[in-house]
């Protein structure tokens, strides 16, 4: 589904953020990228999304090289980045209209997906009136409405309080069950990865960005208090413990500008 061939990325003349990374992600699999900040997780996601181009190597989606961002790869950012000048409904309709849908169709599809994330009662509200968790729900709806081949999520729930985060994790799994999607999910949180993922890639700073590739036992959702869940978090923690802490990134991912 997604294939990276010997991908390297550096910003400006700095050191490599990613070095010679090769990776294949299967269709309809939920993959978590787990690792400390500064290890290139977001860079990897931006490469797949098409926001940045690799310095060398190739990023392929279904065999086709990725050149620019597009609705087949929906991104949910850490901040919801809903357009504050549009109502919730119009935010979801925006992408649909770009695909050439008329008003009637786009409204129907947008409502259907707002319903899916439980935000239909708030369809006429302005984003500023919503809590962080509600905004992320809308952000997810506006992506799902476009039926993307890939769902890219960059620590989408990390700014939320613990309770909302777990509720949204539950919802995300339920939604993935309803409409199977390939998900690439970035997190630095072991519990989150253990709860959501079918496959966990433990990442570290270059060289050797990929430190571990772990397939998790299949039944999901895994109850957060179960023995199996604790076994997984223990395994992931021991992988992370081998990494150096306090990485000084040459350039934080969030500061890199969008390449056009």
């Amino acid at each position, binding site marked *: 589904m997604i294939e990276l061939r010997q991908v390297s990325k550096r910003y400006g003349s700095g050191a490599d953020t990613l070095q010679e990374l090769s990776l294949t992600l299967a269709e309809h699999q939920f993959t978590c990228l787990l690792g400390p900040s500064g290890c290139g997780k977001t860079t990897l996601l931006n490469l797949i999304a098409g926001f940045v181009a690799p310095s060398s190597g190739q990023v392929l989606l279904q065999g086709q090289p990725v050149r620019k*961002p597009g609705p087949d790869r929906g991104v949910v950012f850490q901040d919801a980045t809903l357009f504050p000048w549009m109502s919730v409904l119009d935010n979801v309709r925006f*992408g649909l209209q770009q695909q050439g849908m008329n008003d009637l169709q786009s409204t129907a599809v947008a409502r259907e997906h707002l319903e899916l994330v439980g935000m239909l009662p708030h369809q006429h509200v302005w984003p500023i009136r919503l809590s962080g968790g509600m905004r992320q729900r809308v952000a997810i709806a506006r992506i799902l409405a476009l039926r993307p081949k890939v769902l890219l999520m960059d620590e989408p729930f990390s700014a939320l309080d613990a309770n909302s985060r777990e509720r949204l994790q539950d919802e995300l799994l339920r939604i993935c069950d309803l409409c199977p999607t390939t998900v690439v999910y970035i997190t630095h949180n072991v519990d989150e990865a253990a709860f959501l993922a079918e496959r966990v890639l433990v990442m570290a700073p270059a060289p050797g960005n990929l430190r571990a590739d772990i397939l998790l036992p299949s039944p999901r959702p895994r109850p957060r208090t179960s023995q199996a869940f604790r076994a997984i978090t223990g395994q992931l923690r021991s992988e992370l413990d081998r990494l150096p802490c306090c990485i000084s990134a040459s350039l934080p991912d969030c500061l890199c500008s969008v390449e056009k």
Partner: protein
Amino acid sequence: MIRRLTITLLPFLLFLLLWQATALLVEQLRMVPFPTPWQTLLRLGRLAAGEPLSDASLYRHVGDSLLRWLTGFGSAAFAGLLYGLAAGMFRRLELATGQMVHLLQLIPGLAWIPIAILVFGIGEPATVFMIAMAAFPPVAMTVLAGVRQLDGTYLRAARMLGAGKRAIFFRVLLPGALPAALSGLRLGMGNSWRVLLAAEMVVGTGTGLGYSIVESRWSLDYTAAFACLVVIALIGVLVEYGLFQPLEKKAGRYYYLEGGPQP
């Protein structure tokens, strides 16, 4: 409500007192007449009733000044908005011209006088040109900065959602830059209003509030000059409370971006 009113009005009353005291002191110490608030108010009343000032009515002066201002500011605002959006969309344009706009910003409005007079001669177009030159840079720069702020967040999101150039311009850049544009317009308006009055004083426009102030000075009619200053202040208050504050309030309702006040 009453408390707020007192807090707002108190400094104003103090100012009037200070003015009165200055008038008395100057008259006592320097033996020259200095218009008091009361005299100024009376004169303003007579001018408002139609008493001519520098061969024209007060209304004519105010109208001419406002017209010049709106012409100069309007064209500069339009150009500034257009430039800011275009430079925000096409990075090459910004690279090529951004420094020049910065330089323009550094040139005080009145410094354009020789150029304005050489190009347009003495008269209306020269004044309008100076006003426009004073208003353009702040509008252009704030709009550009506003668009830049959208980069990385809203622009990224729009492209990811499949938006083309047209949709990005009209549905993302334009509404997204609105708060910045509003503060740019406000800056530009203030700049150009000040330049307008100064230009009228120097270029010799024949009418206008700035012209009347200078004329009153030559004819030692200081009360009239003071009355004109009061009119200028009143126009400023009107624009601020009648135009910008309601506009910003309206925009603020939807446009609180990240970090804005939460409900």
